């Protein structure tokens, strides 16, 4: 019957897209595995392991992660226009990946990893398989969540200048985010959460400042202004 014919046709189509999805999921799972190892290395910064050493540990896995994303890109090139059909299958892995490489970048340079750089570092190419901007932004929010803990542990380890630097970075980042006209629920929620990171860092800064632990004085603060 015509019903049967139509449904048979559907079946073929769905099986096709199902197999694409499965291949993507397998790669996303591997990317996540690599991400976990990077994360485990990154945890060491809270124990004040020197950043170069942390970088060293993470390097191989970052390479692996990039390769997995690259292979997802290969698959998607075969299905033009369907990027967002399968987006849900690697989305959260991408966000995690962004948060990790952005944190590492910040540790090394003190700067924010920009979208285009993140895209390049993850082996995604802007044409068919670019890094979705919302994924990038959510990843940055996750990175921000790590900062309060980092600041606390740095101060405990005797680095009293850290809160001021982090507070400056986070304040700028928060201000930049505020330029966005957010509607998307998850991103808005994550951004709203950034406020708590900011508050916590402000509190830590307050704690070291009120105890006079910051070497610099008001003069140094003025210098900073000039930065």
């Amino acid at each position, binding site marked *: *019957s015509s019903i049967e014919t139509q449904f048979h046709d559907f079946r073929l189509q769905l099986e096709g897209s199902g197999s694409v*999805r499965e291949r993507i999921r397998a790669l996303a799972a591997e990317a996540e595995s690599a991400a976990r190892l990077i994360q485990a290395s990154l945890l060491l910064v809270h124990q004040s392991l020197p950043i170069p050493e942390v970088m060293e540990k993470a390097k191989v896995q970052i390479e692996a992660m990039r390769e997995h994303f690259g292979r997802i890109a290969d698959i998607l090139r075969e299905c033009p226009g369907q990027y967002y059909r399968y987006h849900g299958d690697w989305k959260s892995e991408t966000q995690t990946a962004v948060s990790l490489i952005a944190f590492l970048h910040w540790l090394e340079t003190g700067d924010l990893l920009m979208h285009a750089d993140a895209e390049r570092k993850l082996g995604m190419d802007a044409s068919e398989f670019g890094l979705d901007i919302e994924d990038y932004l959510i990843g940055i929010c996750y990175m921000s969540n790590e900062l309060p803990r980092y600041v606390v542990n740095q101060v405990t380890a005797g680095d009293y200048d850290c809160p001021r630097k982090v507070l400056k970075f986070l*304040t700028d980042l928060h201000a930049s985010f505020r330029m966005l006209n957010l509607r998307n629920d998850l991103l808005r929620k994550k951004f709203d959460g950034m406020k708590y990171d900011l508050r916590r860092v402000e509190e830590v800064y307050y704690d070291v400042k009120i105890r006079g632990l910051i070497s610099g004085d008001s003069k140094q603060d003025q210098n900073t202004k000039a930065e």
Partner: protein
Amino acid sequence: TAIATSGDPSSNSPMKEEFAKYANYLNEINDKRERVVKASRDVTINSKKVIFQVHRISKDNKEEVLMKAEQDLVAVTNQYMSKLVNELKGTDFWKLRRAYTPAVQEYVEAATLCTFCKTGTLLNLDEMNATLQPLSDKFAEPLQINVLDYLLGLADLTGELMRLAIGRISDGEIEYAQKICRFVRDIYRELTLLVPIMDDNAEMKKKMEVMLQSVVKIENACFSVHVRGSEYIPLLGSGDPDYSFLGVSDF
């Protein structure tokens, strides 16, 4: 102080410049999404009205009611679906799918319901998409209803068919109800096989349960008419129960 200055949004850091780009991107996509959502609400509301119109059917006004329903449906297609198509032109249909999927499902529900009532057959996805073609041939990529939305709409259709069947039985149109019953069973069986391979099938799984309940409701209604009708036979000695007794037809 240091922090005050840097936090001032009027200052021009590279970060700010980058975020200005992100902001543009998000504004555009959000505006488009908003327009699609609005167009979708119109499609939904008016498709629902078509469905209500079909339910105004009774034994004697069939032609007239369905004619009206069909006209309404054409209006939905030309006025509201065309608007949706317009808003979506040139976009990745999958990206904004969440914004329009309820509308498309409701539209599928309405269109297939009308077709079933008129011809007793299932309106195919290809046929539906062919109807939409003229609305969008000016653009590079015409809106095509995707398989998933079509199937989700079909799942809802069975609920409306159940309501229709109960109503038809009350009107004494047993044959009609039985036809619905067969049709719904066929769809249910075919969908059973597709559910596990559908993209994101949590929604569909829920709908399958509701659908089975609908099937059972129709079957129970047919059963009830049947055993009741059976009592008629010995009384009049005729082979066929006179179902015209049923319903309000004889007021």
